[in-house]
Each structure stands twice: as structure tokens, then as C-alpha cells.
């Protein structure tokens, strides 16, 4: 049950991110559902599931871009693993903490991608563009997580109930 549900979440996230989410772009910037879901699942299910889902979503992101394979998988896996460490430290139904974590994770993620791309593709450094864009995406991801996190929380509760009652 848990494995199938998480696989379905990964597939749905991929479809929504590549085909639907770009329609909500503001100046070409739109939420990164891959990251929102990775952070949400890590926060709810812990490091192992966070890292595995982060790796899978990151790899799909890598393949969907057809560019440098491994960058997003690497980043998402570690973000999933690190955020999963906070799994038992906060109440899972505390949306505000989860959303703040997603905001911080987004800034970290975008800064690493920017710096990597700057060196890899000989781009000029612009602090204004980096800060502006990273904060904008973080803000959008936080807005997206207001919708996504409660859904993930309900799925988490459903899986826990299923496990406790039916032992699956």
C-alpha cells in the first residue's frame, strides 16, 4: 500500500510539474513541485523515504531536462535525507513549520543549482538575479505547499491507519 501510494505520488508529481504547473508561471518562474513533494514526504515519513523519493523525483527531473544527469537527484536525495531528520522533532500537523522548512530548502536548492550552472556553463554571477529568483521560487513553493502539504499529510495518516488496523 505504502510503496504503491508513494510511486503514484511520484508519477503524479512528474505529470503535474511538467504539464500543468508551468501554466502558473509569473515572469517565467513557477513552483517546483518536485522539491515541495520531496520536502513534504521527508517531513512526514522520515529520512529513508525522503531520500528515496527525493532521489526518484530528482532523477525524473534530470531526465526530463535531458541535460546533466544526477544533479537534481543528488540534491533532492540529500535534502530529503536532511529534512527527514526533523521528522520526529516537530508535530507533523504543524503546517507552518513544514512550510518554513520548504522555503529554506528551496533557497538552498536554487543557490546550489545556480552556482553549479554558473561554473559549468560559464555564466556571469549576479547576486540580484540569484537572490531575487531564489526567493521568488521559495515564495511560490511555500504557496504551493499550503495546498500540497495537507494532501500529503492526509495520505500519511491514511497509510498509518491502514498499517495499524490491517497490519499492511
Amino acid at each position, binding site marked *: 500500500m505504502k510503496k504503491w501510494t508513494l510511486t503514484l505520488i511520484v508519477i503524479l508529481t512528474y*505529470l503535474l510539474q*511538467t*504539464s500543468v504547473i508551468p501554466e502558473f508561471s509569473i515572469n517565467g518562474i513557477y513552483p517546483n513541485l518536485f522539491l515541495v513533494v520531496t520536502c513534504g514526504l521527508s517531513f512526514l515519513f522520515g529520512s529513508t523515504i525522503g531520500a528515496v523519493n527525493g532521489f526518484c523525483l530528482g532523477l525524473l527531473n534530470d531526465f526530463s*531536462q*535531458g541535460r*546533466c544527469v544526477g544533479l537534481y537527484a543528488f540534491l533532492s*536525495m540529500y535534502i530529503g535525507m536532511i529534512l527527514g531528520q526533523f521528522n520526529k522533532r516537530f508535530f507533523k500537523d504543524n503546517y507552518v513549520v513544514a512550510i518554513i522548512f520548504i522555503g529554506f530548502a528551496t533557497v538552498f536548492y536554487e543557490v546550489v543549482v545556480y552556482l553549479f*550552472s554558473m561554473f559549468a556553463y560559464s555564466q*556571469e554571477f549576479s547576486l540580484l538575479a540569484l537572490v531575487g529568483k531564489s526567493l521568488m521560487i521559495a515564495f511560490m513553493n511555500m504557496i504551493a505547499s499550503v495546498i500540497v502539504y495537507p494532501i500529503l499529510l492526509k495520505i500519511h495518516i491514511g497509510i498509518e491507519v491502514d498499517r495499524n488496523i490491517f497490519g499492511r
Partner: protein
Amino acid sequence: MKFKLPKSKKALVVIVTIVLLISISFTIQPKENPNFFERGLYFVFTPIQTVVRWPINKVKSSITFFSEMKYYAEENERLTEENSTLKEQIRKLEAAGAENEELRDLLNLRKKYETEHAIVAEIISYDASAWFKVMSINKGRNDGVNENMIVLTPKGLVGKVTQVSDTSAKVTTILDVNNVVSARITKTGDLVTTKGDMNLSEKGLLRLNYVMSDTLLNADDVIETSGMGGIYPKGIFIGTIKEVIQDSTLTRKYALLEPGVDFNKLNEVLLINGLGGEES
């Protein structure tokens, strides 16, 4: 904060990290052919993405149609006038064309170019990154799409095909950092290059490089492909100059270029054959 992971899992994380780092170092340069996993991903998801995008594209087209109705009415009036002027010009051209073999050859070439090699494709997905500008289309090798085909719309150049699977293809837009286009200033004929810039792409702008300080370049100047780079044929509209900036060395300047294409409103694109080389 201590990581609470069992030893076996820690070892797995280390192995996966090493594999990913090796993969990153080997795939950092753009490649033309998708790998096995990418082909599998495109094969499975392209039909689903096409279905998901269909209602979105229809709604977008309807919204655009209604919001631009007034514009279309004015445009129609203007085009009717322009049409009669153009008809007059065509009559003159036809008279001259009868005596001009070179013009006739050119016309034949144009007809061939338009009918035999043009493929219409729909955008089915966009990349998730805010820093790169790559999109997928619903036509692939089975439909005659090849690497380095030119992607455009009536409003101007979109980019080029960089990866092709059997059923879909990746288009690297001119906003992407990996896309360099050999261009020229239409007014003066001076050669320049356009390049995507991570710091400008969210504003929908790209950078015009290699502009000598004595080159006459002003805002609203038109930039088109030069045909010199090896891929893009000559004369495709790229965009107009938004701002000219003097380099600190004072020997060169660069400019911010506003593409003719609105990348946020792209639904359908046209693919034509390029010149067959590598853009340099």
C-alpha cells in the same frame, strides 16, 4: 544534529552519491541522443502529457482568442488595407519576375522549403528548473524530426531541437544558457551573437554579445539570424533591442534583446530543417 541512519543505509548513500557524481561529470556537456532511461521516460509519459496538455492548450487558445478579439478586428482592417497595397506590389513584382530567372529560382526554393520540411508540433511539457529553458514537443523521430532542426513561430525564432526520441523531442530555446545563435543587426548588417543568460531569462530577455563599440545599435533595432553559424538559416527574426550597455573596457558593448516570441504563450511551433552544421 546527528544523522540517524543504519550503517547499511549509510553505505548505500555513499555509493549512490559516488555514482551520481560520476554521472554528473560525464553528462555535464549537452548531448544529442537521449539515453536508455530518458527514451523510456519519453515513451511512457509523452502520450499522457499530450492528453494532459490538450485541454490546457484548448483553454489557453480560447482565452487568447477572446482577449484579442478587438485587436483582431483592428488588425483585420489594417491587413485588408495592407493586402490591397501588397497586391499592387505583387503585380509589379510579377512583371519584373517574368524577366528575372534568379528570382524565380528563389521562389521555387522557398516553396520547397515551406512544403517539404515543415513540421507542426505542440508543446507538451516544460522543464522544472527556473535557470534552464528547455521544453518538449509531441513530435519525434517517427514524424521526421531530427537534431538541430529549427523551431520557430510566425513571431520569430524559438530555438533548436537538441534531443530526439521516437515520439518526442527536446527544444532548447534561445533563452537557454547553452544556445548561442549567430545573428546580425538587420539595419547595419553587423554580425553579433545572441546567448541565453541565467540572470535575464526570467525577464524573457537574452544577451547580444560581440557588439563593437563603434557599431550603431539602438533600442528597437531588429536582430535576425545571420546564416553564418551553421544551423540557423539567414533572416529569421529573433527579436528587438531593449537596451544597449557599454562594456567596462569601452571597446565593446552588449545589449539586452527582447525575443519576438512570448515563451509563456507558446502552444504550437513549426520545425524546419537547419543548415545541417553546428552553430559556432
